[in-house]
């Protein structure tokens, strides 16, 4: 085997530019596959991390009628906070949130929004709720940067907000933008205005009511509570998983094309080698090599492209991949309109598993592609081969 490897290496080096062209194409596949997978992993991490910090915490209880995709149900989806959660809320391990529908009128444009009542002193989410303590004659409110962009509102600006209380009676007041936060999570920012929970409960005539209860600890054992539906973190982040799965399928096609190009080059090289090196094959057999050993020699020679490509990819790919992990990849389009938790700059995350899997897949594929044309050697007549006669 070692002899086969030595021979294969010598033959490859002897082939010169042809070998290096194959190796370069294959190394490109390594780098692209690792980079794209790293981006996906980075997105997955960033999206779930941001969602945890700005929207879902360690999981939530939803009021039985709450459906985020049906704003018409909002006015019905609230209830008094269950007494069993009183201690957790007092200890800051759980946070009630009341959601109501309303409209704001920046520069006379009507913008339908969700008004979210959030405790001023909460620490579960990174929303700057302490700013809701601002002393002003208007209602202090906090909005996300996506909302600030779409409504063209700036910190300190005042705008009229209109809502209907629990009886359906219209009410209107002025809010002042006390703070703007940036989270990359549309679920926490788009068309949403945060006011203090107490304030919203008063506005809606719903003292002590909540729509969502967000808890901090995702690992704690929890059970269903009457009238409330337990939504573990895994369920709340399922959308991200599904999106990444869909994107990964799309990327697989790209990997396939890249690999196909590389494999075509290797396949061609193998065919050409066997065609041009018939005398060599005949000599090996004459020297006592079994046909199987000769096939093995050529297969190893082909597979060695993958090993050399891995080394080349390490040489130029490693600095590139590390640089990318540091500066990230900024998407050329505005990601805030995607409706998904996605940062404008994604930082790829590479794992040993990712690199090992990529190397294994490319090496095994190269081995198979190298073996396929080599099988022809087993059918060769060694005497004819020794004479260099075409078979």
């Amino acid at each position, binding site marked *: 085997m070692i002899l086969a490897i030595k021979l294969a290496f010598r033959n490859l080096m002897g082939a010169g530019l042809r070998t290096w062209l194959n190796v370069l194409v294959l190394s490109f596949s390594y780098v692209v596959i690792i980079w794209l997978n790293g981006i996906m992993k980075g997105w997955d991490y960033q999206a779930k991390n941001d969602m945890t910090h700005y929207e879902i915490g360690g999981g939530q209880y939803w009021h039985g009628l709450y459906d985020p995709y049906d704003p018409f149900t909002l*006015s019905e989806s609230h209830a008094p906070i269950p007494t069993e959660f009183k201690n957790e809320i007092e200890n800051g391990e759980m946070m009630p949130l009341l959601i109501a529908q309303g409209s704001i009128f920046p520069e006379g444009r*009507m913008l339908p929004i969700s008004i979210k009542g959030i405790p001023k002193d909460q620490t579960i989410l990174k929303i700057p709720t302490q700013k809701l303590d601002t002393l002003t004659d208007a209602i202090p409110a906090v909005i996300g940067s996506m909302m600030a962009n779409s409504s063209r509102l700036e910190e300190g600006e005042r705008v009229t907000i209109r809502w*209907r209380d629990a*009886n*359906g*009676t*219209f*009410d209107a007041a002025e809010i002042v933008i006390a703070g703007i936060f940036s989270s990359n999570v549309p679920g926490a920012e788009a068309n949403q205005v945060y006011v203090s929970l107490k304030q919203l409960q008063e506005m809606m005539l719903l003292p002590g009511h909540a729509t969502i209860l967000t808890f901090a600890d995702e690992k704690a054992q929890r059970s269903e509570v009457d009238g409330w539906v337990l939504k573990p973190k895994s369920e709340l982040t399922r959308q991200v998983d599904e999106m990444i799965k869909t994107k990964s399928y799309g990327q697989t096609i790209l990997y396939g094309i890249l690999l196909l190009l590389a494999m075509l080059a290797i396949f061609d090289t193998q065919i050409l080698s066997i065609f041009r090196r018939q005398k060599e094959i005949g000599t090996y057999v004459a020297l006592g090599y079994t046909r199987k050993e000769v096939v093995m020699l050529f297969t190893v020679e082909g597979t060695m492209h993958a090993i050399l490509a891995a080394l080349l990819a390490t040489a130029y790919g490693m600095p590139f991949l590390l640089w990318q992990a540091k500066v990230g990849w900024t998407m050329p389009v505005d990601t805030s309109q995607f409706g998904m938790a996605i940062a404008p700059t994604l930082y790829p995350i590479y794992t040993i598993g990712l690199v090992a899997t990529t190397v294994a897949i490319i090496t095994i594929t190269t081995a198979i592609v190298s073996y396929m044309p080599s099988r022809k050697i087993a059918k060769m007549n060694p005497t004819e081969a020794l004479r260099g006669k075409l078979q």
Partner: protein
Amino acid sequence: MKNILITTLSLLTLPALAQPTATEIINRVDQNMSSENRIAESSMTIHGRRGSRTIESRTYSVGTEKSYTEYLAPAREQGTKMLKLDDQLWIYSPSTDRTIQISGHMLRQSVMGSDLSYEDMMEDRKLTDVYTATLSGEETIEGRNTWILSLEAKVDDLAYHSRKIWIDTERYVPLKEELFAKSGQLLKQTTFTDVKQVEGRWFPTTMLYKDVLKQGEGTEFKITSIEFDQDIPEHIFSKAVLRR
């Protein structure tokens, strides 16, 4: 003798000169504006930011409980029908050949992009039943003397907590109305113009609805023809008429 004559004359003329109460004014307006039934053709012009569009319709109504509207123009809206029976509302759309019931919070949506919501159109409770009315002043609008009525909600489930209505002192028709939020913020304003005498009663034929919080010129509602107390067949107010 002279003093007795003056006192007697004063006693005789005072009741006639006395100002009516707010409730009496509202009742007079109701008498003037309402009828057993009516058939009206109207055009609704919605002034938006990207231009205006006009929708023409014909409405059959009985009191405030039953009403059937069919849209006549433009071509895109032609054939759309709307039926209101008490507190239920159905809309038929010819493009989908479906009838849908507008209920619950869908009633809060705007009618064809106008400043009016379905709920505004559905309001059929008598003002005197749900509001406490007081006469709060007098004003002249476009040369007409008006009484200003202030209405405060006396029930909880009203969309507007208070209203102000300007009533023509002579013709007993509203000339202006303002709707307020609980906080006192003005939300909507309606102006009634082109008051004409139709079948012996005074009736405003142009109404301009304006959501004051929004930019824009509001929604203009023009009655092009109106007939009172007609013989409207009962089948007009059945769901079957929608798909006909």
